[in-house]
């Protein structure tokens, strides 16, 4: 545990912001949906996959990225986008389906695109992995020293696009970092039922790609592993596979009954809350007082509330706008 105060506090602030954003969405989402849950109702309809519990991974990796480093994400994209430094207002507005959203309401929570931070995501598992390879290829062709990062889950590591992407990245020696967030489940399917090896880090060898496993609940550990991976890419030394073992504190999506969980499983994982782990490390160093932690939480509450207010007050797109943007 060898990071300076600034860096650790930045990580902490990112994690608290992501947690605050997600937990607030977890409240707003149910507005007008209950008592009889109706997925189509409320200010935020459709599926909702929240990142609560995995914040240390997004924070620890994106801490090494600049605005112009491309990041591709998944159906669970909020944490990555926030850690990448997104403007919360158009992000929240997009999740609300408002005209002021990044995608003018066409994308929603699973399809958030912000070119100003080179961020994209999507709802198809594995779909974003080749995009990071392509972004890295563009970077290499332009002889820039940017780095592309692709986040995806352990479930996605079993789809063909994973294999093809890692092979291409290694073949072409591309500046890309693959981050597998192993949160133990793909919806209800546990890793043992989906993955024929204990650790996806073992799969790096199949491509000659250096791979490392890290505790995804420990932001500092993620930060250090990601630092090495991102530096390797920036120095033109090719791709890395980072496997972060983590856990989602909410269901796969909101409304998930989680009947597939073991008894007390979630409770024991909650003892490894990334906020407490990093917060504890900071407090041990005397770098974070309870009052300071309070202040950070309050600041993040305010930022999320401001974004929420912006989103709520923004207009919906006109129905006819559905016909725009099919072609450039």
């Amino acid at each position: 545990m060898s990071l300076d105060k600034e860096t650790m506090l930045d990580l902490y602030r990112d994690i608290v912001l992501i947690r605050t954003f997600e937990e607030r969405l977890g409240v707003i989402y149910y507005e007008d949906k209950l008592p009889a849950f109706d997925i189509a109702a409320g200010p935020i309809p459709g599926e909702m996959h929240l990142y609560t519990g995995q914040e240390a991974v997004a924070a620890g990796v994106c801490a090494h990225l600049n605005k112009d480093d491309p990041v591709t994400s998944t159906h669970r994209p909020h944490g990555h986008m926030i850690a990448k430094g997104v403007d919360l207002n158009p992000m929240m507005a997009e999740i609300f389906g408002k005209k002021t959203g990044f995608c003018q309401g066409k994308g929603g929570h699973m399809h958030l695109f912000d070119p100003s931070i080179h961020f994209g995501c999507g709802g198809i598992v594995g779909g974003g992995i080749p995009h990071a390879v392509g972004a890295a290829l563009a970077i290499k062709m332009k002889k820039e020293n940017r780095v592309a990062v692709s986040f995806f889950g352990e479930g996605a590591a079993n789809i063909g696009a994973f294999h093809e992407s890692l092979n291409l990245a290694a073949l072409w020696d591309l500046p890309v970092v693959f981050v597998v967030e192993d949160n133990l489940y793909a919806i209800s399917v546990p890793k043992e039922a989906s993955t024929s090896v204990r650790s996806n880090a073992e799969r790096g060898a199949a491509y000659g790609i250096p791979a490392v496993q890290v505790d995804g609940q420990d932001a500092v550990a993620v930060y250090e592993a990601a630092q090495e991976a991102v530096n390797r890419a920036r120095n033109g030394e090719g791709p890395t596979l980072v496997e972060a073992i983590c856990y989602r504190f909410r269901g796969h999506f909101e409304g998930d009954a989680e009947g597939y969980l073991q008894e007390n499983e979630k409770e024991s994982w909650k003892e490894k809350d990334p906020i407490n782990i990093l917060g504890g490390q900071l407090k041990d160093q005397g770098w974070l007082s309870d009052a300071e932690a309070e202040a950070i939480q309050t600041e993040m509450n305010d930022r999320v509330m401001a974004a929420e207010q912006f989103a709520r007050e923004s207009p919906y797109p006109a129905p006819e706008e559905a016909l725009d943007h099919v072609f450039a």
Partner: protein
Amino acid sequence: MSERLLTTSKAMAEAIAQEMERDESVFVLGEDIGAYGGIFGATEGLLQKFGPERIIDTPISEMGFIGTAVGAATEGMRPIAELMFVDFFGAGMDQIYNHMAKIHYMSGGNTKIPMVLMAAIGGSYSDAAQHSQCLYSLFAHTPGIKVVIPASPYDAKGLMTQAIRDDSPVMFFFHKGGQGLGWMTPNPRATGHVPEESYTIPFGKADIKHEGSDVTILTVSLMVHRCLDAAEKLAEEGISAEVIDLRTLVPLDRETIINSVKKTHRVLIVDEDYLSYGMSGELVAIIAEDALDYLDAPPKRLAVPDVPIPYSRPMEQHVIPTIDRIINNVKELIES
């Protein structure tokens, strides 16, 4: 004595269970079909009944598990594979298109592929462009695949039983909004009478779900429900609409379509799939081929206007056919 009512998802699960009891070679594989019971309930309770050997949760490997189903079928099994959302077809399309659909033909009939590939379709709940598609037209365009699209619990059970017993590959499309799920917008037409005993419904027989004489409405899946709602409203205004649920696109019940058009002289096609180069065009074409002189007005098509499905509610409602737009189209057709 009161009829037994079932939701569509329970009707599907019951059909699968009865066939699994009847035939050892039937099994199910796919993502979250075991402990979870299928994201849309189509396999609920099957793991408990039949165990993990025959109800197999797979990794996220569409090419792999659909190809596995094809291979198992060549060795005498009768697999049922669930694709979850049809939108994910692209991850396994080669196995669907070049293998599942073609092996029987390429082999000159010496190798059968008796399998069912089921998938959820449709939108209207803001799941956006990658989770709201219908796409049955793509597969109906593919020689070698039978395309089944039930619109009621009764049809779902009978057509699923038929699909499992069919010796050809069948794609079975069920609409998320028609499953009768507790977390979807309540839909009374998603629950209905379903006999307990096993029964089949032959493919290629459309069902006239509402008789009428002024205009023929051709449709499938959740749009059947909306067209029936529209027909009831139109009836109040003295307009008699005949709502035909095609039920299967391959084989297609050309006769029922043509006979209805010859009776009403006007036709509206309501399609939740994309407008161009799909189901709606094909239906107009066969009518123009077989009933051209009976048409008193150009056929009308109400479908998704060649845009991906947008997330935001007002835009989504603008592109997916609604009861109001169905009614307006019928009126325009009558007046023309």
